[in-house]
């Protein structure tokens, strides 16, 4: 689960990572609703909160020199569509007196399989470019969970970055607190870009924040579990989650949706279909042991995905029983199939014969395949119908 900037900033505040003074306004509120709005030191930055990069260029980041400006920008941004997202919140922050911009993140590294600090003395917008062109300017340092962040970790980062030991204590505090946040919030990623050196006293301040929380850990991160329910997110994803399914948008549009009982087979299906030049718009992972009524609902969700003509179902039943699958498919085809839509089913495993028998005698809207390859072949043969 990816947090929006204002949520990340609120975590930074909670963990005492220095940020600029800020306030959040939600849709329906106006600037003067902010408690103590008059205490803000102008200019302010007004930032639209959407789950997308590139909002600056799209007009989602604005500067307010006066109270009047701020009121206008808030009014203007809240509720507006930006890069395909509705702006439900704006974040207002005082503008920092930036001397230099660093990059700092702590991520769970798939390669080392432990947390990793990524640091660069040249942060800001061009960090990805820097990673490509001058990778040596980006330091990566694994954190041993049994050791944690130590003062020498930070000394090393500063020394290798050519920065003065002057920043040691403040940077150490920031990294320790970010690591605490990382651990306690079950984060997969925490990022501060830029981490700015500000003002004559060269204070280190987080000017932007990104945090991603491990979905598997949300059961013990109740705040974010609740927050997720009200976050702007695809309806299908939410609907599928209610049945404990994982709905994965694939291409922006496409006539095919795939369903399977494991992410591996889903990927196999998508690879085979893509190789034929046909686009898959979405995939649904049922996980293990789905029952007939849940399968029926999963199929309904995929059939209602805009633009979908065919749903391709591949089940290799370990625990899942084929007769349950057949029952669910039959039910969905009878009740939810739209005009011109059809379903291709391939299933293998426990009670296969029984399941196949249950699906026989259905009309052209339901095709049976023997294996994955054949299920894709049936699709390719009907390319014209897509």
């Amino acid at each position, binding site marked *: 689960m990816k947090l929006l900037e204002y949520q990340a900033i609120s975590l930074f505040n909670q963990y005492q990572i220095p940020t600029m003074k800020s306030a959040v306004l939600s849709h329906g509120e106006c600037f003067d609703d902010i408690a103590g709005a008059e205490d803000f030191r102008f200019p302010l930055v007004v930032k639209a909160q959407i789950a997308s990069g590139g909002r600056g260029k799209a007009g989602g980041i604005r500067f307010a020199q006066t109270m009047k400006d701020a009121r206008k920008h808030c009014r203007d941004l809240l509720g507006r569509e930006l890069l395909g997202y509705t702006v439900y919140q704006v974040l207002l922050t005082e503008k920092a007196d930036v001397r230099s911009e660093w990059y700092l993140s702590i991520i769970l590294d798939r390669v080392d*399989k432990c947390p990793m600090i990524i640091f660069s003395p040249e942060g800001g917008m061009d960090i990805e470019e820097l990673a490509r062109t001058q990778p040596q300017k980006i330091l990566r340092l694994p954190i041993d969970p049994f050791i944690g962040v130590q003062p020498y970790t930070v000394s090393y980062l500063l020394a290798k970055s050519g920065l003065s030991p002057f920043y040691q204590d403040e940077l150490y505090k920031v990294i320790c607190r970010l690591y605490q946040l990382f651990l306690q919030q079950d984060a997969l990623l925490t990022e501060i*870009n830029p981490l700015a050196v500000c003002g004559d006293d060269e204070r280190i301040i987080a000017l932007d924040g990104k945090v*991603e929380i491990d979905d598997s850990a949300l059961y013990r991160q109740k705040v974010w579990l609740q927050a997720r329910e009200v976050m702007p997110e695809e309806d299908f994803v939410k609907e599928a989650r209610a049945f404990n399914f994982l709905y994965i948008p694939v291409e922006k549009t496409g006539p095919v949706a795939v369903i399977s009982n494991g992410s*591996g087979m889903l990927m196999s299906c*998508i690879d085979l279909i893509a190789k034929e030049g046909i686009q898959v718009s979405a995939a649904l992972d049922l996980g293990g042991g789905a029952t007939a009524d849940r399968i029926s609902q999963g199929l309904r969700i995929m059939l209602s995905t805009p633009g979908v003509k065919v749903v391709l179902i591949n089940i290799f039943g*370990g625990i899942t029983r084929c007769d349950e699958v057949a029952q669910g498919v039959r039910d969905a085809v009878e009740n939810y199939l739209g005009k011109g839509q059809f379903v291709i089913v391939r299933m293998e495993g426990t009670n296969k014969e029984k399941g196949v028998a249950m699906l026989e005698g259905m009309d052209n809207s339901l095709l049976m395949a023997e294996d994955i390859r054949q299920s894709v072949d049936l699709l390719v043969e009907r390319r014209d119908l897509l």
Partner: protein
Amino acid sequence: MSVLINQETKVIVQGITGREGQFHTEQMLAYGTKVVAGVTPGKGGQEVHGVPVFHTVREAMEHTRADASVLFVPARFVKNSATEAIEAGVPLVVTIAEHVPVQDMMYCRRLARDRGVQLVGPNSFGIISPGKCKIGFMAHRIFSPGHVGIMSRSATNCYETVFMLTQKGIGQSTCVGVGGDMIPGSTFIDILPELNADENTKVIVLIGEIGGNEEELAAEYIKRHVKKPVVAVITGKNAPKGRSMGHAGAIVSADGTGSAQKKESALREAGVHIAESTRHIAEILLNLREEYEL
């Protein structure tokens, strides 16, 4: 011979009194697995399908000196149960559950390495040496004894492959589900040396995916140490990108780490047969059948 487990392997089932634990204990016993003890805190002294239940793994180990433990516990209890098994000195710990918090696995993996314990999973079907022993929940009917050793990040792709192989009469020595999670307890290079050393394994199959660098590390190991033929498939070429909001993802993968292209080229360079799909794996193995007496 077989890898990691065989007909002598003594197995503890953690969470044995739960619904899943009971069901799969029965399945494993029926398959011939030596389930010697179960563990459920607070239920010591009971029996499940004739298997004695203990409060703790330590007691179970004192009584049985088991070789392996398998966890049929919900995701949120995996950290505690795996830690218990590792601390009690179980040499092989297999975790099944999906949706285990990633940081829990980070901790367990770190601890297992430190203690010299082989941790397999999570989000894994387990391990099976067909005809000898199974630890996990895999649909064992599709497996058959033979000489192909399989390691897979995906359960369904492994089933699919094994199903085709068994249909063609090509059996398996040992199949290991290393699991599909971000931080697996064991990865390909932890299992490869075992399959490489196993005289009953004549060909090795690696079922990989995009993400991480397990396949790249495997390629390096294969290049240096493995003389046996290896067949690999990498799925997920057309999977949706992670839509990462931060720059960190882009930085980490700036060198292409994790892409199917990088993995396939590393494996190809190591002399591995690259399959286009699970069906293609079966086709390649059919070609190798005679030479390697599969």
